[in-house]
């Protein structure tokens, strides 16, 4: 018996000896982001090794705000992400509800093409989307341009379809017998029951909008219309720019999401894992 518990102890130690350095390496870039954001530029570009935060975050933030209107860009990013998340959750859950609970003509085709787009690179639709929004609709540098085209998402609909189809039919049939209208059943019976799934979906969509880079970079390139990642991206590679400031911006983009991640880890992980577990 002793030898068995000794082997167990040995395995436990080996596991931690391997995993701890790997975890430290993985945390290192995030830690350095925080450290850099608190250091003056002459500290970042000095020959010494600095691994602990200083107290220059506010100075760096002021430098960043001097280089680009970052606070304004954060305002755009937050408003866009909130609106996008609300609309996208609504659209995808309505569609998911229809696919889960009704039989209708063309259902097979609709499901097949939604599935088909999962493996299709976004690059294929990028150019026509840009031509349409910028040239045909004249909507470049507007909020509509940032919010509407990314509203289509296939994994979200499949996720919500799964959520609604797992609910027992009796729940809805009882309401139908009472003569309750379908949209009321959806809004007041189905949606409240799907709350955990809606939370998971909302978090994933919010994060996707918050971090989205390529589309906002192309469509909203005017300084006053940029989202925060795009505004920050324009500084990277410039010669006369405060790197401490860029790092302060990176921290402002990242740390709120890390806090959300820690607080809502369960929903987060459910949202990501749902893609795979069908």
């Amino acid at each position, binding site marked *: 018996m002793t030898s068995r518990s000794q082997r167990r102890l040995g395995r436990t130690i080996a596991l931690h000896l391997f995993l701890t350095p790997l975890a430290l390496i993985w945390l290192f870039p995030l830690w350095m982001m925080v450290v850099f954001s608190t250091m003056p530029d002459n500290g970042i570009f000095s020959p010494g090794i600095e691994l602990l935060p200083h107290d220059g975050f506010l100075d760096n933030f002021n430098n960043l705000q001097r280089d680009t209107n970052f606070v304004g860009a954060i305002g755009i990013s937050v408003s866009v992400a909130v609106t996008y998340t609300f609309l996208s959750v609504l659209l995808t859950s309505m569609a998911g509800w229809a696919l889960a609970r009704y039989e209708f003509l063309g259902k097979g085709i609709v499901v097949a093409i939604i599935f088909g787009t999962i493996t299709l690179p976004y690059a294929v639709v990028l150019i*026509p989307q840009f031509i349409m929004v910028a040239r045909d609709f004249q909507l470049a540098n507007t909020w509509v341009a940032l919010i509407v085209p990314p509203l289509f998402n296939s994994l979200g609909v499949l996720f919500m379809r799964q959520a609604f189809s797992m609910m027992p039919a009796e729940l809805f049939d009882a309401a139908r017998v009472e003569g309750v209208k379908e949209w009321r059943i959806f809004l007041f019976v189905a949606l409240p029951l799907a709350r955990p799934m809606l939370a998971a979906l909302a978090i994933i969509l919010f994060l996707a909008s*918050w971090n989205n880079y390529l589309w906002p970079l192309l469509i909203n390139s005017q300084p006053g219309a940029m989202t925060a990642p795009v505004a920050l991206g324009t500084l*990277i590679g410039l010669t006369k720019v405060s790197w401490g400031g860029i790092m302060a911006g990176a921290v402002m983009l990242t740390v709120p999401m890390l806090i959300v991640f820690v607080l809502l880890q369960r929903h987060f992980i459910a949202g990501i894992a749902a893609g795979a577990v069908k």
Partner: protein
Amino acid sequence: MRYRNATAYRFLTPYLLIFAIFWIWPIISSFLISFQATRTVPWRFAPTFNWGRLIGDPAFFNALKNTLLILVIQVPVMISLAIVMAVLLNSPLLKARGLYRFAFFAPVVVGEVAYSAVFRLMFSLDFGIVNKLLNSVGLPKIDWFSNVTPAMALIMIAVTWRWAGYNAIIILAGLQSIPDDVYEAATLDRVSKVKQFFHITLPLLKPVIVFCAVLSIIGTMQLFTEPFLITERGGPGGGTETLGLLLYRQGFRSLNFGYASAVAYTMAGLAIAITLVQLWLTREPK
């Protein structure tokens, strides 16, 4: 279920409308645009104009080669690492599980721009913390940005850091759906842990791993932000230029939509081909 066409389509219409306008039509449209000369006004139909240029364009083959190289090295390394992370995070022996999960999963929420900026700073030649640390243990500095091989390695390191945890989350969910009694039976039969991993865990995880691989391939195929921001527009000298970056340069710098659409369709073709091969390789034996 009764047929309820009207009700169903009332719920589906907003979604399908967005889908039709911003996906279905663009998929057709970019195919058509790839057969047009788009730098004349008005555009004119010229079936071989872009595709002919594509097969003779060294810049295209350079971007294709770089993209495939990153794909072939980075995706397997990352998926293997993600499997290791998931299996170890799932071990009942692990203490302080929450801390380890945070370490590996945190990059999932970090935006491309934020982490590109950090990696650029960490790997800079003279003042980057990575070279300082290499120096402090007696290793030579590496010029990550002026030579092609280290620059490619840097892109792969950055992408792996960002996405390994994401895949580990999916694989971990797959692991947790394997019932315990499978392992209990194996343990009773004195099958070693290593054998259990290769003969039970891996085969049962196959569908999940294939799913991760397909998503990673499609993602890496379109790699754009990292070579755009970290190695400065695909530098050194196009050494890290990817298909995504070529599409951006052609489409949105030179405003050559026709040629960029041909590049986009090449990416789609590759993605579909690789996905099909992967599904075929891992098909269920009848």
